[in-house]
């Protein structure tokens, strides 16, 4: 559990970060909270000759709530999401999800940016951000560009971010309606056996819009457009929920691991989604 030797860089601004990235190419990795990367380095599963610590780079830890969107800096910790007063009012699903990530110690270190950028299918924030239709801002040698969360994830640890780019912020349209983040895990600190993020709007008893995303049930987070489509225009009754669950099951592709075999995971995914829809709808 001791990493191979590496060079530690602690740049003071983003220009310096990009310069180190440019110099060392794929031998360099940026680190936010370090709670995914450092264990991988200690297991010698990630070889990182140049580690770039972002903690001295300013301007990455703000939470800005605008009239129609929320901007969260990449270095905002899960604990800051939980503690932020305004955020709980405008986007309570963020707090509900963050409270189910790891444990308090990890949440003091783990960041939103690291969680979404790493591409680990077990992470909770990627699915949540897909549900919320967030946009990730990355900066690289060519300047800034925005990538929708729903287009960001390509495979496990493979994302639309280039090696020489750094994810700097996440922008979320102000969520509307009821919400739920439902997660089953074996114990505190575990990744999800199955998790579902649901944000749903109720227009006089009819579902006006809904977004549904699932976590740790594929090699990427799964935004299930079909599951949402099964609910829109319905009264979110049992038939509609069953249809949504069936549609979601068509989109996920879980694999067997210590949490259980595929049949179990699919079953639990269905149960968890049903609960998430019901809870979100009750709040809508």
């Amino acid at each position, binding site marked *: 559990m*001791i990493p*191979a030797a590496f060079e530690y860089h602690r740049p003071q601004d983003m220009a310096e970060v990009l310069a180190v990235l440019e110099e060392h190419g794929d031998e360099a990795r940026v680190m936010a909270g370090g709670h995914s990367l450092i264990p991988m380095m200690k297991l*010698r599963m990630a070889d990182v000759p140049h580690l770039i610590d972002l903690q001295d780079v300013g301007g990455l830890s703000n939470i800005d709530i605008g009239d129609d969107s929320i901007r969260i800096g990449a270095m905002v910790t899960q604990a800051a999401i939980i503690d932020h007063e305004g955020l709980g009012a405008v986007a309570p699903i963020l707090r509900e999800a963050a409270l189910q990530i790891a444990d308090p110690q990890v949440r003091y270190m783990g960041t939103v940016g690291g969680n979404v950028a790493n591409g680990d299918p077990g992470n909770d924030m990627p699915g949540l951000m897909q549900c919320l239709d967030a946009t990730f801002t990355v900066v690289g040698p060519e300047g800034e560009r925005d990538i929708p969360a729903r287009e960001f994830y390509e495979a496990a640890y493979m994302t639309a971010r280039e090696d020489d780019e750094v994810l700097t912020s996440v922008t979320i349209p102000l969520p509307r309606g009821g919400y739920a983040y439902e997660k*089953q895990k074996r*114990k505190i600190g575990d*990744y999800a056996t199955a998790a579902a993020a649901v944000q749903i709007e109720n227009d006089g008893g009819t579902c006006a819009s809904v977004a549904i995303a699932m976590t740790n049930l594929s090699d990427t987070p799964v935004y299930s457009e079909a599951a949402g489509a099964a609910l829109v225009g319905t009264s979110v009754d049992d038939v509609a929920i069953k249809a949504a669950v069936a549609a979601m099951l068509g989109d996920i592709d879980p694999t067997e691991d*210590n949490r259980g075999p595929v*049949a179990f995971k699919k079953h*639990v995914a269905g*149960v968890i989604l049903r609960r998430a829809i019901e809870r979100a709808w009750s709040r809508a």
Partner: protein
Amino acid sequence: MKDEVTREDRVANLKGLGCSRKRVEDARFTQGKGNYVDDIKLDGMLFGDFVRSPYAHARIKSIDTAAALEVPGVLAVLTAADLEPLGLHWMPTLAGDKQMVLADGKVLFQGQEVAFVVAEDRYAAADGIEAVEVDYEELPVIVNPFEALKSDVVLREDLVAEDGSIPPGAHGPRKHHNHIFTWEAGDKGPTDEVIANAEVVAEESMYYHRTHPCPLETCGCVASMDKVNGKLTLWGTFQAPHAIRTIVSLISGIEEHNIRVISPDIGGGFGNKVGAYPGYVCSVVASIVTGKPVKWIEDRMDNLMTTAFARDYHMTGQISATKEGKITGLKCHVTADHGGFDACADPTKFPAGFMNICTGSYDIPTAYLEVDGVYTNKAPGGVSYRCSFRVTEAVYFIERMIEVLAIKLNMDAAELRRINFIRKEQFPYTAALGWEYDSGDYHTAWDKALKAVDYDGLRAEQAQRVEDFKAGKTRKLMGIGLSFFTEIVGAGPVKNCDILGLGMFDSCEIRIHPTGSAIARLGTISQGQGHATTFAQILASEIGLPADSITIEEGDTDTAPYGLGTYGSRSTPVAGAATAMAGRKIRAKAQMIAAYLLEVHDNDVEFDVDRFVVKGAPEKFKTMKEIAFAAYNQAIPGIEPGLEAVSYYDPPNMTYPFGAYICVMDIDVDTGVPEIRRFYALDDCGTRINPMIIEGQVHGGLTEALAVALGQEIAYDDMGNVKTGTLMDFFLPTAWEVPNYETDFTVTPSPHHPIGAKGVGESPHVGGVPCFSNAVQDAFRPFGNTHTNMPHDHWRIWRTANELGLHD
């Protein structure tokens, strides 16, 4: 005017037996002032670590250390070839087998030690490990003991004769080249006959999965060979420091007086730190070779993957009874998976430990047990994870068989237990498999427990829940887990208990200082049990000096008297008895001194709390403090100066703590998530020394029981890869997963222990595992479940529900 000091005040001032005295250890532990092995830093200290096998079974064709020796900071790389000239490439195990220290031509389990890299610091050692090139040739892997007994693949070529015959092992004849021993207890013929002719017979096969004690602190040591004076000092996480000293002497040839073994603070043991590991041997050799101190500390993965596991018992049982439910016979067969080497920590005559306590708390007239030990490509070990030598397996077995029989009889499982308990008047009770239970009052404990939880009310609620479930009103089932256990602890009488020929007595040496304080040293070693607190309490009550004035010291073989260490709840039954007996020697001498000072005959004074008083004249007395001073400053005719005593205690029998546990659980059949609503634990550990520490022990043991029952396992895939080598997958419960525990007690003293104490550390684990498991199983009983194997993690509970047709 001075307030009168009452006798009650004097008793309270001692903080002796029965006092919930605060732990004296905690001041340093809670302030980060503990001194664990990894806190030891010596001048010039080097660091050693292992190259470990990625394969579970492979031939080693070559090991190239050249590149590793080029790594800056790496000083040496030891392989079996380097140890062979010293005769140290293999070492004896506690079970009479031998084990490779470093891979000698092949590896038998994933993570096996292949080479030992010695470097200036642990970072350089880690880089050196990466640079060692080992050429492996993979061999067929066997992870299932039943397959091992059928396979042509020979795991241990060293145990097959040149003509292909299979010589006997340490425990008698071997049936197959992958077979280790067969061990029997009881009478096969009569048992078969009883079962064949019985009115009712229930049968079940169960697997008690492999798990691991996973102490907070991993195993490690620091070896320091002083070449000037020829003395070896070995600090380590040893649960049995004196036995380690003797073993090191026997295998190294260093005379025992030149070896000093020190167990400093230990962060939990639970059996994991009883055995001898290759890291100890390699550190000693490396220190001798380099002339410098060498430290070796496992990381978490090393600890989980390679040091002593627990359980891995495949058990098949038959239990027979009359139609009314009176049990007539019990038969048990175990296929025991010992891994690549037999490194079980059991007394020599008991290769399956005390598995023959498997008749449990019941008056079963006829029984038979047979255990077959088997080699596989898994890590060696087989320790008593918070249980004396396979008692958890035995209690799990009988407590499951009782439930299975109750189902067969269509009887309430609490009532079935009640009508089969050994009755109070039957003690001392000789069980069919040989043990003599010292004392017990099972009916009283059981009735108290059932009443405390309103058992009948719970059953009524459960019946209603089943109706509601069938009516579609709920998706949660309710399980009521029952467990009544009888422990066997305090190993043990030297006449039948030894480890590597060392009798399992224990010891205490007391010195009273002139001003009336004392130091007592024992052959045991605390790993969190609070010995410094509780042994001082035993002594306070025996010698009449306040516990706060008594220092307890353990773990340094240069100063402490010889003993077999701390595991299997043996410290209180054995060393606690030695402490009381040594205290009584002190008191006997004090009585003579007191009589001299009071100018009366020895028989005219009597002990009273903290003093000797003249019989019939309580105003004439000498306090123990006064007597201590006199022992050092007065010339008393016929009495040597000083006040010291030593006692080596060979217990006449084991002790048999018992208890009644009840768990109420709600189970979500759709997700497989169990929720523990209530857990009631009644323990009878005889005389209670410190109720607060007992309660802490019970909470800890129950939490480890919860872990084992509900998810904790060392799982292997077919290739022998460990699937649960980190705490991500190996379940250690946190405060979040742990329910509130309700503790209770009865007191049935041990008749043969000087203070009547029986030991408690492992009781909650032994009784807790079947209780949690029975709760899960009981929830599904109304739907046809008889038995499912642990661990009851979410997916396995879900599978049970699924197989019973409880999903759409």
